């Protein structure tokens, strides 16, 4: 009896194995083995910063593409792209590492609070209702949709001031936060060495007088910085200054002339009082 069972089971097993093998051969999906190789180079965060649905999708796009132009994994940066290039036999262009900056100071002492919001603590839902707790319709709402969107833990809400802080070391420049912000006040900028950054921390495009009423630190479009900049890096559109990172040389002169303090410098050594001025005079 035992023998019969063993034989029957063995026959069933054999038939199934043959059937499975035949079916496998018939419905085989041909896949480029390079896709797996490329995927193993990628960070595997599935952040969507490259514009694909995930790392696998990006690998498929890379393998299919004729050249690596326009394909960039912002998290891995140049190094990852070079590795991918080596696998696929293509050359990858140099890319600039990027970092996110919040273009609003969000310090409530400087912008008058006119009302209190007691709804859902979410920027998107609050934005659907109205423009926020201050009079400035461009200001950061501070509920942290971007903090939630960041998969690298680079963003945090400052417990004291309520403003959003970006950790330059952790930020990969994937752009998830940019997409999550309903106010569109997060910008990706070039990452300077030592996380140094100089930019206009304001998004108010109203005329100067109105912007000033909304917030003490608003950019009023006075164009003092434009005149001060020797490298023509600053432009003003819609009463709002913008510093072009490709032209900026981090001289910090614009920040010193800004009457409202809208231009901020981050992670620079403290300027010793009046010394730079003297040097300049001597040079002139």
């Amino acid at each position, binding site marked *: 009896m035992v023998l019969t069972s063993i034989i029957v089971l063995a026959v069933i097993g054999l038939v199934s194995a043959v059937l499975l093998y035949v079916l496998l051969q018939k419905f085989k999906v041909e896949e480029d083995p390079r896709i797996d190789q490329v995927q193993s180079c990628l960070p595997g965060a599935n952040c969507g910063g490259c514009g694909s649905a995930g790392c696998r999708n990006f690998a498929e796009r890379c393998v299919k593409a004729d050249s690596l132009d326009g394909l960039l994994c912002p998290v891995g940066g140049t190094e990852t792209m070079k590795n991918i290039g080596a696998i696929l036999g293509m050359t990858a262009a140099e890319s600039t590492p990027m970092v996110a900056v919040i273009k609003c100071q969000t310090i409530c002492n400087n912008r008058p609070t006119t009302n209190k919001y007691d709804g*859902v603590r979410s920027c998107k*839902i609050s934005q659907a209702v*109205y423009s926020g707790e201050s*009079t400035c319709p461009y200001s950061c709402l501070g509920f942290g949709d971007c903090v939630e969107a960041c998969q690298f833990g680079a963003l945090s809400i400052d417990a004291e001031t309520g403003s959003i802080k970006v950790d330059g070391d952790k930020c990969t420049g994937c752009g998830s936060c940019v997409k999550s912000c309903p106010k569109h006040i997060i910008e990706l900028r070039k990452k300077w060495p030592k996380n140094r950054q100089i930019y206009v921390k304001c998004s108010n495009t109203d005329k100067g007088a109105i912007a000033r009423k909304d917030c003490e630190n608003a950019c009023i479009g006075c164009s003092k910085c434009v005149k001060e900049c020797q490298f023509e890096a600053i432009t003003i559109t819609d009463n709002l200054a913008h510093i072009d990172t490709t032209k900026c040389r981090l001289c910090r002169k614009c920040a010193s002339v800004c009457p409202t303090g809208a231009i901020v410098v981050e992670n620079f050594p403290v300027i010793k009082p009046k010394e730079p001025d003297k040097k300049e005079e001597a040079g002139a």
Partner: protein
Amino acid sequence: MITFKVGGVHPHDNKITASVPFKKVAVPTEVTIPLDQHIGAPAKPIVAAGDKVKVGQMIGEPGGFVSAAVHSSVSGTVKKVDKFRDAWGTYHPCVIITVEGDEWLEGIDTTDTLITECTAEPKEIIDKISKSGIVGLGGACFPTQVKLMPPKDCTIDTLAVNAVECEPYLTHNHRLMLEKGDEVMVGVQILLKALGIKKAIIGVENNKKDAIEYLKSLLPKYTKDCDIKVVPLKMKYPQGGEKQLIQALTGRIVRSGALPASTGVVVQNVATVFAVYEAVQKNKPIVEISLTVTGKKVKEPGNFIMRIGTPLSAAVEMVGGIPDGTEKLICGGPMMGKAMISTDTPANKRTSAVVMIDESEAKRGKESNCARCGKCIDACPMGLEPYLLGTLSQRNMFDELEKHYVYDCIECGCCTFTCPCNRPLLDYIHQGKANVMMIMKNR
């Protein structure tokens, strides 16, 4: 007594101003007239700074098929064509006019005499409505002329007049029926003529018994060659919703994704009907709106008629200002209205009320987890599952939301109102719905 069958809630109606007659708010020294007082494309300005305008003169022409004209509500000089920031912090295009005197455009009949005879042809009527910038004054502000020209595959047989006013606190439609009953009846006749049908039903909620009786007493005068009925409805929110009203009055159900006109019914708000009367019989475009300014602690709450572009604060001053302890200012009714930051925003065709409520009514309760009690499902007038839609929206599961018909949500707020766990369901669903609608549009 009849009402709609699915869902609905019973908020306290608080109609404290039902017996207060309309008062006129004085014409201010400067008006800001928004150019996007309707659904659809904003009107294109046809005046420039320095132009002299009269009351009733067109200052913005329709910017597309679904759009409406905008008229000057005052006479004076155009100061500038600009944009302004409203009470919610968003910008709208507008025309700012400095008031000089009160001179009306020639051809507009400003007297109160009733003209019952309508000689205009259906085409002429629709043309006049379109030129007068009439939009649905129930809150949605959908251009009326578009509604009167339904798609060819819809055969219209009934006109439903929405005189339900199911929002708590609001009474301006109630007052309009009492003070301008004859005009409303003539308006109904004009709309019947424009649609080429004979049957009209005026649906009034049963808390306005005097209005029902008054309108019924007027019926014999106006039903010689058409069939107009006044139907009292059992009180239930949101009876004033287009789909709910069609269901309550005719028993017909608007299918998911279909136009309300597909059931053969065209719904018009009673204030719109009055505006149609004024436009067709008196050549008067919409330059004034009626609104209720109210609240439990307000000194003299009342109903007002004010020119479009007048700041709402002018009406608020007439009721004795904002009372102490006011926690929330709401533009519109408390169920669907939006909380405002200040009353310093111009009245427009969308404005129906300013409700001032104190902490006891305004404060949101502490949100807790869903208890799965299913009260929101019972309350939803569209037969949806709000608890599920809320959670799916919170998790950004848009495919699932679409499968559960989130686009059918009319955003009436019954689910949030009824939730014992104080979950802000509508806030979540609104967000999810907006995303799903965008995905469907881009498809």
